[in-house]
């Protein structure tokens, strides 16, 4: 992570190469990390923090760890997925809420009991993650939707306001794993 130093041969002058001058390169590299490392990288400096918040970086991370699987090879293009995910809250959020916990769960659950070659069969499906993500997004809509509802359903709005439940459909992913 230290800036690399290259010295031109035979020349007294040293050329100083800093990764911070090439943010696109930095983004490329960061996109190959896993979620935790990326989050750690975000703590290095403000530039790194900004770069690691780029959607493209998180998109690369997500797609690296979750795939559509063979059966849906003809499935959505990257652009349409991108637009949907952006509408639902972004790749970073997708990773934080769904893919990250799911990977942890699969690693914790599958590691001890499933032989390594079979664990590949338990790869995380992107479509499944997206489904779970969309349910969560939908639940969050409920909190505060009462405000937006028109006058015609005033009573309903009051009821919705009073009935705010924390979105909980993804809690099953982050609850502690029973390791007994």
């Amino acid at each position: 992570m230290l800036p690399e130093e290259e010295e031109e041969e035979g020349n007294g002058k040293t050329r100083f190469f800093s990764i911070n001058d090439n943010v696109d390169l930095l983004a490329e590299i960061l996109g190959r990390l896993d979620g935790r490392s990326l989050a750690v990288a975000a703590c290095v400096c403000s530039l790194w923090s900004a770069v690691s918040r780029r959607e493209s970086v998180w998109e690369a991370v997500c797609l690296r760890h979750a795939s559509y699987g063979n059966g849906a090879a003809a499935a959505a293009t990257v652009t349409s997925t991108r637009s949907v995910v952006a509408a639902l809250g972004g790749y970073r959020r997708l990773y934080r809420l769904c893919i990250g916990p799911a990977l942890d769960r699969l690693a914790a659950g599958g590691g001890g009991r499933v032989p390594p070659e079979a664990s590949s069969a338990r790869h995380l499906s992107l479509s499944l993650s997206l489904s779970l993500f969309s349910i969560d997004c939908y639940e969050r809509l409920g909190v505060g939707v009462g405000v937006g509802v028109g006058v015609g359903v005033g009573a309903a709005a009051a009821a919705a306001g009073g009935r705010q439940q924390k979105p909980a459909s993804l809690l099953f992913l982050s609850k502690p794993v029973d390791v007994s």
Partner: protein
Amino acid sequence: MKLQRERQGNLHGGRGWYGAAPEMESEKKKAAMAEDSDVDELLAALGYKVRSSNMADIAQKLEQAEMAMGSSAVANDDALFFQLAADTVHYNPSDISTWVDNILSELNGPPPVSSPPLNAPAPLEQQKRHPEALPSDAEQSSITTVELPLSTRRPAQVYDLEPLPAVNVTRARGRFAYSSDPQMDVVDPSPRDSKRIKFCSSPPSSSSSTNDAATSTASNLPAVVVDTQEAGICLVHALLACAEAVEQGNLQAADTLVKQITVLAASQGGAMRKVAAYFAEALARRIYRPPPLGGAVGCPSFDSVAFDDMLHAHFYESCPYLKFAHFTANQVILEAFAGFRRVHVIDFGMRQGLQWPALLQALALRPGGPPSFRLTGIGPPQPDNSDALQEVGWKLAQFAETIRVDFRYRGFVASSLADLEPSMLLGKNSDDCGGAENEPEVVAVNSVLELHRLLARPGALEKVLGTIRAVRPRIVTVVEQEANHNGGTFRERFTEALRYYSTMFDSLEGGGKSGGGRDQVMSELYLGRQICNVVACEGAERRERHEAVEQWRERLTGAGFESVPIGSNAFKQASMLLALFAGGDGYRVEEKDGSLTLGWHTRPLIAASAWRVAAAAADPRSSR
């Protein structure tokens, strides 16, 4: 003494359920013969010094202790007992009398011994008659998992016990057989005694037993203390016996048994206790049913639909059954909708609409882009006049807008699905979004845990199936509980329900959550209401008439539908979903005749199937 030990050794080795009986007979004779020496020989084999003349006294004290502990244990205070056992100072533990005295004094004077519950011989006969109603594997696992927390507690005295058969078993025609585990056998089935089995929670590694006092005196106060596994099995027997008593109208016996069940249940832990408690409550409701006129008979039925929805939501979160149902149905619908530009989904049980965001997202991402999507949601009337269906529709519309899927919604309030007419559902909109009018609209009907309610009223299901047919759906997805709770006799229903809900509760426990979380408690309450309805209600009120997938298959094929096999994509998705659940290796997805079932270990609990109108009966679907 040696001969006794040999016999005990036989029991040790023999694993047969019924093998214990003949030995017990001879043991009894031995016990009778040994009475002449002052110290009871059988107990002496265990290391206890008990004078035979004191047996009745000790039995009484044990019973007092058990009553006192029983009442505190029922108040959910297992810890108290173990603490007592552990903290009470004992000198000379082989002296049962003082041991019990110590415990009694710790408890500060137990309540006076209450009159013993009746031992009606009738229930015992009935118990005898269905030995195969023994707990299934799933229940066995529930019993065994129960033992884990208890075994970690080591009370102050630990005895190494030899199997000591309860000598009175023989009097009950030698058919009682409890666990082959070399622990105390407990049954006191003698018709002469007015007292039935009494149990008290005790750590599995230590238990004491005393012979029925009838061997030495004429007293009617046996008190037997057993380990929880025994208690668990006896609990199941008691439940079944009570059901039999209720079916035969023997309400007194049933009443006795219900009280007993409650005491027994307190000695268990975890899933078994909760299941037993709910079943006991349901049985009590059935026994003490207020006159059928007016008011809520039996169950605390839908006093609040919102409450029901809330419980349903917790159940959704805490275990995978509903998620499995939704995801599988969505996958089936998605595949059926492939290639169509206008789609219409009719949902028979809208609730919070948690099924549909995932489908909308999948449709948004399908190759070729999203279709224009119409949703018709059906829900029960809300008592407080709030329009829950409309709210859910708004939320879904908002969601659909963010992911840019053309979405239209219509909500229908109906107290029963049979009130629906096809014209309502088809509701042709003349104000279609421009350009798509000539495209065929393809319809899917989705019913998750809704159809079984229709069986309460004769003819309702047929009407609804006719309505479905009239709508001409491309696919009908049906998800139902995989159990037969609509069987012929009450007893069958009860037995089946006991098995089913034991497995269900087991899976909730094994779900790896920090035990007793709010979700879990709510889910158990949700299931408890179902139990109450299955057991305590009859007639039109009994809405939870679950039937197994084979039975639905018959009904649906009889009504002109044919089965559509659920594809492997749905299976893979379900497997992946389960992998994400903690405790996920207890769940099993299986495919059976084209339908997918999700179960806990070997027992399927929920089944999803897909149907379409049989070709012979259908009109060309593309026409409107």
